[in-house]
């Protein structure tokens, strides 16, 4: 796998120029996948139906949309035409208009491609889930603490109630028991919600501030916040378009890492959001151990980890980056050793008109 993503080799290649015919489900899947691949350039997409959903997606991605299929097909610059219209007549149309040097993927070949794309999406979902579950495995220490403490409280109070005679004390302690049970059941509820597979529902408007607060709650189970102060600098109305489960997943990852970087000696965790014309920014800053300069380039690579064996899968930040890229966002990191690290995600501004 590594040799395919070898960066210097890609830079030397001229991108393969691709035209997509059909902007239905197949067209959207191709857009979402191909636009992430640096060696592929999508020169245009077309569909007979001007309201086909893929056309809007293409505009969001700044990919040219045209209603002139003949012009797109006959374009000299196109190396490959991908026909996902499902229209048997299209093949003839393409061959009538295309340049002799242009390749065509249509019929059952494009069906196979569509199946591969779907298969890849399923694998990715499995990978996200596997990494999330592996992460939850490392919650064990924190969870035992968070569950056993209220249990101790319940045990102690219940034993005391057996021979307590003061009515006021009985009422108070019974109330404390109820409160402790609520605390414990909240843990189970939060975690089972987080542990399930990310939903595959369509993107919705997601309140970033709310997701950060939720992620902070989950991260508290994962890791110890002792001697760590949390600062929030949220801008009101910081909203993005995306899958709420996936957004939570990436924020839990980043916050957990930030807190783990401050395990020795504590520090400050700052969560910030900001809206601008370029997009909506989430920033997670810690004052922990920082990242060595020569490792900064590698932290988003799959299976790269600086944690002890068994402590990290090396897939956390890789999945964070995959999800952010899928959402058409960008993630960057700045760090100084012993001073901390800042992860900044810029999500595209949510376009209100088609939500």
């Amino acid at each position, binding site marked *: 796998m590594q040799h395919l993503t070898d960066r210097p080799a890609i830079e030397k290649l001229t991108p393969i120029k691709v035209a997509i015919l059909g902007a239905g489900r197949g067209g959207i899947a191709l857009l979402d996948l191909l636009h992430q691949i640096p060696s592929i350039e999508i020169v245009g997409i077309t569909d007979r139906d001007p309201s086909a959903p893929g056309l809007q997606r293409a505009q969001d991605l700044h990919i040219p949309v045209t209603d002139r299929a003949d012009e797109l097909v006959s374009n000299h610059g196109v190396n490959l035409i991908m026909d996902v219209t499902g229209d048997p007549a299209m093949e003839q149309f393409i061959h009538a208009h295309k340049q002799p040097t242009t390749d065509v993927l249509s019929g059952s070949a494009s069906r196979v491609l569509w199946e591969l794309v779907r298969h890849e999406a399923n694998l990715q979902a499995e990978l996200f889930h596997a990494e999330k579950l592996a992460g939850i495995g490392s919650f064990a220490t924190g969870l035992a603490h968070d569950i056993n*403490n209220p*249990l*101790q*409280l319940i*045990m*102690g109070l219940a*034993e*005391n109630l057996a021979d307590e005679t003061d009515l006021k004390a009985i009422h108070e302690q019974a109330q404390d028991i109820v409160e402790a049970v609520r605390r414990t059941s909240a843990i189970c509820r939060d975690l089972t919600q987080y542990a399930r597979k990310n939903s595959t529902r369509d993107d919705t408007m997601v309140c970033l501030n709310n997701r950060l607060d939720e992620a902070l709650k989950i991260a508290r189970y994962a890791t110890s916040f002792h001697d760590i102060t949390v600062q929030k600098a949220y801008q009101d109305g910081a909203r993005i378009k995306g899958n709420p489960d996936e957004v939570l997943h990436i924020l839990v990852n980043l916050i957990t890492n930030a807190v783990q970087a401050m395990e020795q000696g504590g520090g400050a965790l700052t969560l910030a959001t900001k809206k601008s014309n370029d997009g909506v920014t989430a920033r997670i800053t810690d004052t922990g151990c920082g990242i060595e300069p020569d490792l900064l380039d590698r932290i988003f690579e799959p299976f790269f980890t600086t944690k002890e064996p068994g402590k990290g899968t090396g897939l956390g930040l890789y999945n964070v980056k995959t999800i952010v890229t899928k959402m058409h966002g960008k993630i960057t990191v700045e760090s100084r050793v012993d001073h901390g690290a800042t992860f900044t995600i810029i999500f595209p501004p949510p376009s209100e008109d088609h939500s």
Partner: protein
Amino acid sequence: MEQFTSGFFMPDQATNGRVLVVDDEADIRKVVRMTLQKAGYDVLEAENGEKAIETINYGENRLLLDVLVCDIRMPKINGVEAIAYFRANYPRVPVIVLTGFPDTDMATSMLRQGVVDYLVKPVEGEKLRESVARAMEQRELAHLQG
């Protein structure tokens, strides 16, 4: 807390011994206090290792503190560090660990360091009182041996 006084060798008549409970959660300190007071112990509280060290070094506690009941996961100075300090500076004060984390490696390492008991929350009141009572006997033995 009382200053060093001339009567410091004579603790309150009513008490069966003085126990310092170290836990970062006030609720836990409260129920452990309730549990131990039932057996006539005098209970002091500290919210972390740093406060625990301050408490034992304060006035008559230096001599009158009999048993330490200590959590592991705490802010500032955690249980492991605090227990190491107590074992080094007050080797005659028996230490009981009361933690939310069932960890056999941790338990083994603690018992090797001379911790007398490793209890995992939630622990029944009777069990905790028995453990403290055994620790008190050890403490008295240590006194007798001078």
